[in-house]
Each structure stands twice: as C-alpha cells, then as structure tokens.
C-alpha cells in the first residue's frame, strides 16, 4: 500500500519537523484499544503509574512487617500474623523474614521505582516535553508495559509456590541463590522475573533514547530540553547499557539452577574448573552501581526543573547540571568495586575504585550547589511539589554525606553490611526517589488526570512523611555504627545489641507513622481523581510544552508541532510585565540579539 505522491498534497510541508510516521496513530475507538492495549504514551504512563503504586504499597507493607520484627522481635505481627503465620502463633518465621527483606528490595527497585519514575513519568513527560505526538515506537512502548505486567505476575507467583519466595537478599549472591541454598522454585521465579522486567526496561530505554534523538520539536536543541528530559534520557542510556548485564547474571543463574551448569558453584576444588561465586557479584554490581543512578537520575532531573519553577527563576547553571549528571553516569560505571571491598580483591584495584568513588562527589556537589543556587533569592512558592523537591534535596544531601564513609576502604571495612549501609542507601535512592515520586505526582497530576489534588492534604502528607522518614533512616546509621549487621532476624539474641533495642523500637514506630501517613496520599489521590477541582491548562504557570496544550491532552498531543524558542525555565524575565513566565514555544518579547543566538529555524534540528 504505497501512497507515493500523496504526501505533499497534505499541507504538511511547513514547520512540522518530523514526519516519521511510526509514532502517529489514529484515535482509538474501542475500550480495549483505548485503555488496555493502548499505544498512547499517556495511557501507558498511567498503566505504569497504577502498577507501580500497587507494588509500592505491597513493598511498603513488607517493610512494615520487617520493622515489626526488628522493633518487637518474636512478637505476633498485628493483623497479618493471624492470616499468614497461624502455625507460628502469628509471629514472623525466620524464612519469611528473609523472604520479606529480599522481596521488599526487589519489589521497590524493579517494580515500584522503575515503573513510577521511568515507566510513568518517562512515558508521560518525554513526548510532551519535547513536543512530539508520541514515542517513536508506540507499539514497542505497549509491549514494554505488558512485559512488565508478565514480570509482575512471575514475581507475584513466587509468593505462592511451595518453599516460599526467594530469600537471599535482593543481591541474590551465590552460593545462597543456587539450588544448594535455595532449592525451591521461588528463586528461579525471582531470576526469571528480573530477566523479563529487564527486557521491559530495555524496550522502554530504546524507545526513550530514540525518541529524544529523533522527535524533538523544531528549535528544541539538546540544551533547551527540560532537565526532566535530560535526567530520563541519561537514565535510559544507563538502562540500555547495564540492564543487560544483570540480564546475563540472571540467565547464568537460571542455567545453574535449571540445567546444572556451574558458573557460580565453586565445588570442591577450583582446580577442577568449577565456577566462581564472586563472578556473580562482579556482574551484579557492574549493573548494580549504575542502577542506583538509574533510580535517582529521573528524580534529579525532575526536581532540578521543579526548584526552578517554584523559585520563579531559571535553573542556575543549566549546562553545569547537565554535564554533572552526564559525568556521574560515566563515573558510575567505574566504581562498582566499592560494593566488593571485603571480597578480597587486589588492594590496587580497590584503591582505584575508591578514587573514582570519591571523584563522584565533585559532579554531585556541583549538582547540589546548583539546586541551592537556583532557590537562592528566589521567589519561593511552597506548593506541594516544591515541598517534596526540597525534601529530595535535604535527604539526598544527608545520603550523599554518609556515602563518603562507605566509599572509603578504611571505614567501609568496619561499616560494610551494617545498618549504616541500609540507612545510607535508603536516604539516597529510597527516600530521595520516594519524595521525588510524590513531587512528580503532585506536579503532573493536573495534566495527567485533569483534576487538582487537595493542597492542604498534600502539605500535611509532606510533613508527616519527611519527619519520620528522616528520623528512621538517620537512626539506622546509628544502630549500624553500633555494630548491627543487616538481615539479622532476631535482635534479642545478640547481647551487644541489647542497649540499642529502644532505638530499634523507635525506628519501627517512626516507620509505622511514615506508613500510616501514606493513607493521606491514597485518599487524596483517589478522592481528587473522582471529585477533584477541574484543573486549568497551566495551573503552575510554567513554560514547558506540556502545559501549553489543553487538559486533558488530546491523543495526538499537539495540534500543531510547536516551534521552540526558549529554554525550559524562562521565569521572571525583566522585559515582561504581564506575567512571570514565558512558554518555550513563545517568541521572546525582546530578542537578545547581543547574545548572537541564531534564530530558530523552521527546519527540524533532529532530522537527517
């Protein structure tokens, strides 16, 4: 079916930059094509959001059970205990405890943060913010969600198989994760679930990277992209390159478990050519360290934008922020060994890894100072997205500082595998991303769903979240410094930890407060979805492209592909008196000719 010669009669030969027709699709008409097997990036974003929130709640409940066991060792778990562990008098059995912290980590990382930050906001923001009608491969986008759905089912099945789910910690180190340590099917399902969810992530990453390269609206140069898009794009590059590494580790582990290969089983003698358990740690952390940046980069990008929006100033040092994020991506590849200082690696190697780890603090500090400089002397509007963004800055700062002790070999050998580590990584990649997710949800909810959320409730939610969260992860550093290892089941068995038990209990109470505060969010979310005030087109008065189109966004996003003139945060321009923001696709009132910037051309920057 060739339509040669038909095109030029279409009236589409003007400024419409891209004409890749893969990404343009007709309006869906049936229920299934509109809401279930949709190829529309906005619908897929919502699917990812709901799936991610479901898993976030599931992983959160698991965290509560873990904290119950640590705060009140051996006491029957309220509510859940009666249903799940009747034979044990309602108390959490040791195996279930291991299984719970394993699945808490796995679920939060692969099934909550990834779909919310990357799946939902990546999908929603990238095409809207770069001025595209959809992702470049909409069908691949749909497959990405359904692969994630299949992975979810595989992961969920593990909870119900005989022998229980994986119980090795989310790092799944052999020999524990081979059939010697985990004979049940739970571990195999875990490895398969990680592999399939990795396939989903790679499909998404290929789509995001290509979309940003090919579908930016005319005039939208790389340095006019909102920082949100930069964060998501760099994340996708890391995803595309390093998720396959955990994929290979998962495949080899599956082969060891199902087909009897011996990649990770040392056997009686290494001379016999048996496998090497440490090999898994290499593969895991070659992926695992970029992964922590994969999780945090979208939040960095998003709050870099939000801080500028609600300080009503352009982001300070836009390019420095971009280059810092890129530098962190590069360095993140060279530091994985700092997770393995205690495996007996060569001191020369570990010194190299330590040096690169310390180097990361340079771009991180630039990034951090840019955030502070952005809000410095700004006209701060303490909206709920702004509060959560400031929360990210706060907890990320704390997490960054405590990371210095872990990147340094001498202190790491003492602190390795203690609760100090748990507190540190929860500050950086759990708390920061948690708060960043809420900042994003509060910020884009009006555009996604066409309704406003209740402001007063969101602010209460913020304060009831940030206070217990800071206390509980902060106090974890103290118990870790006091010598408490990770993954201990029954703290009452260790005399040297007895004096820390009141602190443990207070951490648990804090965690329960944090957990209960999330009900405010759940209520706010669903109430606003049903009865919220109708959202205006641009309620936050900002200039990025997604706020310049009607709400709800039509399925084709832009009736006409916008022509981009400005950067993403043209706030408080002195030459404008009627309002303090300028849209990216509005010609500036006075062209800064002295800067010698070329006029945006009608030709696409991305094509050819």
């Amino acid at each position, binding site marked *: 079916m*060739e*339509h*040669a*010669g*038909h*095109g*030029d009669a*279409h*009236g*589409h*030969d003007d400024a*419409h930059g*891209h*004409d*890749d*027709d*893969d990404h*343009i699709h007709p*309006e869906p008409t049936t229920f299934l094509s509109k809401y279930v097997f949709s190829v529309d990036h906005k619908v897929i974003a919502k699917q990812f959001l709901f799936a991610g929130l479901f898993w976030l709640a599931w992983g959160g409940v698991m965290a509560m059970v873990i904290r119950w066991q640590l705060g009140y060792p051996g006491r029957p778990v309220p509510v859940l205990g009666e249903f799940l562990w009747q034979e044990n008098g309602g108390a959490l059995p040791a195996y279930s405890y291991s299984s719970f912290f394993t699945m808490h980590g796995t679920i939060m990382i692969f099934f909550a943060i990834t779909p919310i930050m990357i799946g939902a906001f990546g999908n929603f923001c990238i095409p809207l913010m770069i001025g595209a009608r959809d992702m*470049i*491969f909409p069908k*691949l986008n749909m497959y990405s969600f359904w692969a994630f759905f299949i992975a979810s089912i595989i992961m969920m099945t593990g909870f119900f198989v005989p022998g229980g789910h994986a119980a090795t910690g989310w790092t799944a180190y052999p020999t524990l994760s081979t059939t010697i340590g985990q004979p049940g099917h739970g571990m195999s399902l875990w490895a398969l679930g990680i592999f399939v969810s990795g396939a989903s992530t790679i499909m998404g990453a*290929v789509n995001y*990277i*290509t979309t940003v390269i*090919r*579908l930016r609206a005319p005039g939208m140069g790389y340095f006019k992209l909102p920082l949100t898009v930069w964060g998501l794009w760099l994340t996708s590059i890391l995803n*595309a*390159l*390093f*998720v*396959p*590494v955990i*994929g*290979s580790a998962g*495949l*080899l582990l599956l*082969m*060891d478990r199902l*087909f*009897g*290969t*011996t*990649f990770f089983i040392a056997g009686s003698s*290494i*001379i*016999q*050519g*048996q*496998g*090497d358990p440490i*090999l898994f740690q*290499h*593969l895991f952390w*070659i992926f695992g360290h970029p992964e922590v940046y994969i999780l945090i980069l979208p939040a960095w990008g998003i709050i870099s934008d939000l801080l500028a929006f609600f300080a009503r100033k352009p982001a300070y040092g836009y390019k420095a922020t971009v280059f810092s994020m890129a530098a962190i991506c590069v360095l993140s590849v060279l530091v994985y060994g700092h997770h393995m200082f205690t495996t007996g690696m060569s001191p020369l190697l570990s010194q190299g890894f330590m040096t690169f780890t310390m180097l990361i603090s340079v771009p991180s500090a630039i990034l951090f100072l840019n955030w502070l400089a952005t809000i410095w002397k700004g006209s701060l509007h303490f909206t709920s997205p702004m509060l959560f963004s400031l929360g990210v800055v706060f907890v990320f700062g704390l997490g960054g500082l405590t990371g210095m002790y872990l990147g340094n070999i001498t202190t790491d050998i003492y602190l390795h595998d203690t609760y100090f580590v748990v507190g540190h990584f929860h500050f950086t990649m759990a708390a920061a991303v948690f708060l960043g997710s809420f900042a994003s949800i509060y910020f884009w909810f009006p555009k996604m769903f066409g309704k406003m959320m209740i402001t007063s409730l969101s602010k209460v939610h913020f304060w009831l979240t940030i206070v217990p969260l800071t206390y509980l992860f902060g106090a974890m550093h103290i118990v870790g410094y006091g010598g408490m290892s990770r993954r201990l089941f029954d703290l009452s068995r260790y005399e040297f930890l007895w004096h820390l038990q009141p602190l443990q209990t207070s951490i648990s109470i804090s965690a329960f407060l944090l957990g209960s505060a999330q009900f405010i969010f759940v209520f706010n979310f669903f109430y606003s979805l049903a009865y919220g005030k109708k959202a205006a087109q641009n309620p936050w008065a900002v200039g990025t492209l997604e706020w310049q189109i009607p709400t709800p966004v039509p399925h*084709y996003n832009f*009736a*006409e592909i916008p022509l981009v003139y400005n950067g993403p945060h043209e706030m408080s321009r002195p030459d404008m008196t009627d309002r303090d923001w300028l849209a990216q696709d509005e010609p500036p009132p006075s062209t800064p000719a002295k800067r010698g910037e070329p006029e945006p051309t009608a030709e696409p920057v991305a*094509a*050819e």
Partner: protein
Amino acid sequence: MTPDVAPRRGRKGRRARDMGRIVGLVVFLGSLGMLFLSLLFAYAILRASVPVWPPAGEEPLPVAQPFVSTLLILAASVSLHFAGRAKEMAKRMSWLGAAAACATAFLVAQGFLWWTVWSGGWVPSTGGYHSVFYGLTAIHAAHVVPGVVWLLVGLLRTWRARSAGASKMPSLALVSIYSHFLAVVWVVMFVAVFLA
C-alpha cells in the same frame, strides 16, 4: 474539529521513519552487545581463576565443527550483503533465500555440536569449561533464531511486493544490521571459546 495530524507519506516521510528505526536498532544492539560482553567477561573471570585452560581433567572442545558453523554464519552475512545490493527482485530473493538457508544451517550445525559434546559425556555440570561452552553458545543461538524468522519475513515481503508488481523493494537495512552483528559476535565467541 480534529486537527490534521496524519503522518506525512512519500519518500521523505519514509526516509525519516527508516532512519528512526535504524537509530532504535543501533541502541538495542548496544544493549545486546553489553549482554554478550558481560558473558565474555564472566568467561574471562572463570578462566583467570584457574592455572590452565581447559582445566585439568576436562577434554578440549572440538574446533572443526564450530569452524564450519563460523563459515555458515559468515556465508549468511555475505549473502545478505549481496541481497541488499541486488537491483532486481528475483536476484534479491535468491540471495535472501541463501542467507536464510545458511543461518538455518548454522543453527543445525550448532545443535550437532552440542549433541557431539553432550554424547561424549561432557554435560553442563561437568565444570566451568563446559558451562561456558553451553551457556555462551546457547544464548547466542537463541538470538539467531529470531534473526532467521526475520530473514524469512523479509523474503515473504519481497515475494509479496513482487507479486503485487510494486516498483520499490522492502528495505533490508534493519535485518542486515542485526544479522551482521550476530555474525561478529559469533566470530569473537569462536575465537575466545574454541581457539584461545
């Protein structure tokens, strides 16, 4: 009411679309490349942990059989190259058919190789040496299978274009990039696992 958001047709639109797909495929091959690199890295770590390779007590793998496989997958790549350069549909179809046949023969040769080693008593659980052999070649072969299907789809589309009397041949750019990539991966694997 609904604005005109139809895609642009014609040569320019098609070229932009094909370019987008090529960029997407290259990004994906970056992913796939990292998968194979990490497998080779795993092999390097295992190999570095023993004094001699193959480890004491394990029989060296055959070289002649995988060499035939190498010739076959290279032949598939070369045929595909000529298929891409062919100006007439009939010629392109025969080159495409040859490529698909060679790729299939590669899979058969690999199956025969596994069968030979396996029936010699060298099953995966005999040790790291044979784990590497089975694991790496199987993951590579698992990526060749969709390549063969893709070649057959290309053949079918060319055949349908010819029966419909179309003047333009369906592009082979994507399937060629993918196939050449897998051929290169195999050559590296052959050298690393069987020769080195």
